[in-house]
């Protein structure tokens, strides 16, 4: 089956603008707010969200990057280690309100690992989760606070998020697969 487009660049831009509004509303402004993007595509998404929030509130908010390589629990299924990216943490996350940003929420294991990573760095006041796509099939009790689009999927489907910064264009597509219980990287 060919891949099917779920979000165009316009859809993507609108979803990011809406999430930015939701974050500002939930936090009554931008005080203590920090966005942490998860490598790889969570990082440009976090930067876009921060720009959108700045346009709404006129306040720049710090953005960081988080590589969860040290905290993964799925090494045996992934096979090989991957280069770790230096995390660019804006400052101490202690007593801040952290919004974790990722492209696709699937099993929830990456987010679980990210929570461990954040807690090892400091003790935030609060941690929330923003994702562009929630595709279901959670394996741990994790729930997003902000969602760009909910997409019902089969386990073996392939969700492909493409961003200008990493892939040259903005688009989300789904590639249905007939592998019955195929594991896919989140």
């Amino acid at each position: 089956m060919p891949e099917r487009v779920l979000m165009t660049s316009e859809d993507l831009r609108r979803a990011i603008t809406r999430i930015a509004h939701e974050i500002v509303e939930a936090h009554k402004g931008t005080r203590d707010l920090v966005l942490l993007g998860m490598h790889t595509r969570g990082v440009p998404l976090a930067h876009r969200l921060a720009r959108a929030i700045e346009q709404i509130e006129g306040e720049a908010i710090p953005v960081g990057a988080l590589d969860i390589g040290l905290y993964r629990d799925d090494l045996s299924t992934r096979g090989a280690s991957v280069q770790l990216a230096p995390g660019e943490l804006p400052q101490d996350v202690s007593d801040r309100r952290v919004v974790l940003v990722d492209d696709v929420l699937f099993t929830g294991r990456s987010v679980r690992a990210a929570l461990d990573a954040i807690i090892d760095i400091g003790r935030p006041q609060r941690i929330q989760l923003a994702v562009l796509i929630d595709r279901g099939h959670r394996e741990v009790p994790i729930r997003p606070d902000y969602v760009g689009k909910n997409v019902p999927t089969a386990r073996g489907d392939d969700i492909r998020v493409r961003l200008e910064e990493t892939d040259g264009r903005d688009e989300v597509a789904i590639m249905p697969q007939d592998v019955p219980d195929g594991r896919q990287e989140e």
Partner: protein
Amino acid sequence: MASSRTSEARAGAQQVTEVPLTPNEERVWRRRHVLDLDDFSADEIEVVLETTAAMKEVLARDVPRAPALRGTTIVTLFYEASTRTRASFELAGKVLGADVINLTSSGSSVEKGESLIDTVRTLQAIGAQVLVMRHAMSGAPYLAAEHCDAKVINAGDGWHAHPTQGLLDLYTLRSRVGDLRGRRIVIVGDVAHSRVARSDIWGLSKLGAEIVVCAPPTLLPAELGKPREDGGLPDVTVETDLDKAICGADAVMTLRLQQERMAGGQLPSLREYSRLYQVNEARMAKANPGAPVLHPGPMNEGVEISAALAHGAASMIEEQVQNGVAVRMALLYLMRGSK
């Protein structure tokens, strides 16, 4: 698979067989053992150096701990004395949550005459997944890698190689000098008997530096200028006059003079050696401004390096020790997933 690959590696220890990285955005590590830098690709070195930067951040935390190697057993097996290499491997493993067992030849069954292969197999039987090994014989870690399933890191074998020192030197140099392509890096001292110099030469050549080797003719390595398949080293410029070598240098890497060289007749006297080959502030004035000085330790202050220089602003000797922990964390982390 593993054993056939390592026996190949051993047969052509100097042969350049670059392990290609997958072309996708995530740079995946496939190397099983780290025995020498001669078969590293520039890409692989980049992966190690980038990951090292991430590890420096872990080390800078209030509580420097991450669980990446939880449940992994690392054994350090040192047949030769060591302070910083052994301690930094132990710390690197512990920061990442591994269990680290330290063995030295004295106080273990090695003293009772147990062979290297038997010792290695015993350690594997008790569950060692990573073996960090130092040995006075060149090639000993290759033998170990061939005879056990554990992943082997060479922590120094004879005069042959000390790859983790080479990598930490590259990281340290880059942190001060930046991109090493075309930069003039001078390696001074007892190059012939130095595994550090050999690994530095391999690493620097992979990253495209201009390498100048400076030593008395008796302390130049025999394999310089030989073809690669004959165990030759990469191309370097040889200059026996230190004052000339150091002109326009972007960095100077000094080496420990092993005092036993005097007995072998390779040097007339310590005093003459330090007069001609000591790196000091007067000589560093001829290097490019801001050029750093490195030394792998332990130092003979006043012999190969002056005390004032070793403890001055140009010295990166302390950074080398600090970076040593991060580089070893990076390798242990990357190797955990390789088959």
